[in-house]
């Protein structure tokens, strides 16, 4: 199994979730994160003091999938999350050794 972590623009979340549904992914976990990268942040101004805010709001989406679906999932995410502008984000893939569904105790493929 694989564990896919994607860093996305916040407003792409709904589209990505739908795209994943279409390839049969039925569960995901989402975290609000702050990203720092090539994309420039914004300036803030308080009583004449200008602050450069480097961290940008991003969404981290985590999804556990069976290894065979990996390419499909990457496709699905990249397809809708890409705008072509700096800051679209990344997809990280790592190996997942085990999954347990707490409710039933099912493991691995059955637990996804």
């Amino acid at each position, binding site marked *: 199994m694989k564990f896919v972590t994607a860093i996305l623009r916040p407003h792409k979340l709904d589209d990505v979730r739908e795209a994943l549904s279409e390839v049969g992914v039925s569960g995901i976990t989402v975290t609000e994160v702050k990203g720092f990268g090539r994309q420039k942040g914004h300036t*803030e*101004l*308080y*009583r*004449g*003091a*200008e*602050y450069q805010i480097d961290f940008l709001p991003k969404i981290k989406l985590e999804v556990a999938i069976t290894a065979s679906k990996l390419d499909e999932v990457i496709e699905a995410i990249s397809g809708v999350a890409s705008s072509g502008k700096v800051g679209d984000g990344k997809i990280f893939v790592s190996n997942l050794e085990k999954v347990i569904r707490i409710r039933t105790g099912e493991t691995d493929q059955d637990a996804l």
Partner: protein
Amino acid sequence: MKKLLLTLLALMPMTVFAEGLDGANTSWILTSTALVLFMTLPGLALFYGGLVRTKNILSVLMQCFAIAGLVSILWLVAGYSIAFADGNAYFGSLSKFMLIGVTEGSLSGDIPESLFALFQMTFAIITPALIIGGFAERMKFSAVLLFSAIWLIVVYAPITHWVWGGGWLQEMGLLDFAGGTVVHITAGVAALVAAIVIGPRAGFPNKPMPPHNMTMTITGAAMLWVGWFGFNGGSALAANGDAAMAMLVTHISAAAGAMTWMFYEWIKYGKPTALGAVTGMVAGLGTITPASGFVGPAGGLVIGIVAGIVCFNAVILIKQKWKIDDALDVFPVHGVGGIIGTLMAAVFASDQLGVFSGQGLAEGMTIMSQLQVQAIGVTATFVYTAIATYIILKVVGMITGLRVSAEEEQQGLDIVSHEERGYDL
């Protein structure tokens, strides 16, 4: 003849005759008292609170609250008496200790004395509360309380006596309608001295310390605007044309200060900010305060515009050039506003300025001679406050210490001083 007299009687406003209580004036000052308390709680508390970092939000709210409580009691016990009981040119007396002799029947002018004492109490509350902006996010809570208590008795009450209690500045003819010297200069100067004595917050000026909740700050600013109607309008101590005109010019100056700061910032930095607009508004309010009972609408407009420009530059100067960490800009906004407002009162009170005319200077006064009086008032208030505040801080420092430890400052005053957190959303 009697009929004529009778008719005259009927036509003239009650207040002229009433040596007794005037219900209408009482009604308005009851209301004004509520409005001025509202300025501190929750107005100023929120205005200041939004500007600090999350970890210190409760410390600010708590300081405002505790000062309100403490000052009220001290005012009852001795403050009112020092400020308003008969005494000499510099100091009242303790003859009204515990408001002795102030019953439900006592009058002060044509309103109840209990009401006058309470109305003035709300001024006594907001002044030390304004100061906390200077030392926000780093001072020990015990030191805040001790400092505020001593400062009220040693600085605020006597200066109130000088200006409003029959003291030497009042004798001299100082124009300070609602507290340009008494409230704003004293608070601004004390905050500046405190900021210098206590030193900057860890990380200042390199580390950005943006407001944690601008919506809170704007809410508080709006409440200040509304409450200030009681502050300046109430200072007429009557429900009449003076009160109304004071409120009108107050409002105009607030609007002008806000717009000036906003456009200035827009031109200078490319963006108009909400914090800029509300800061300009507060500057406009502070600056019109001493002048509000003497000037006309167009005068109020000019005062507000000047307030916006001067206070804006004062903030940049103090914080960014001089690197003094008057954390919430009390001196540049209130102190500087109070100074220029007290001076401009002399000008725009004149009835010789065409559309910019005010209600006229006192018999025998010219703009220049009045300006002199105003300058003396400003200087005396500034110098006395600065020296006394410095000494009080040194004394308090020896008793409780002034500042939390570096590690505590890092953790934040809410947990360290009060074992509470602002938000648990």
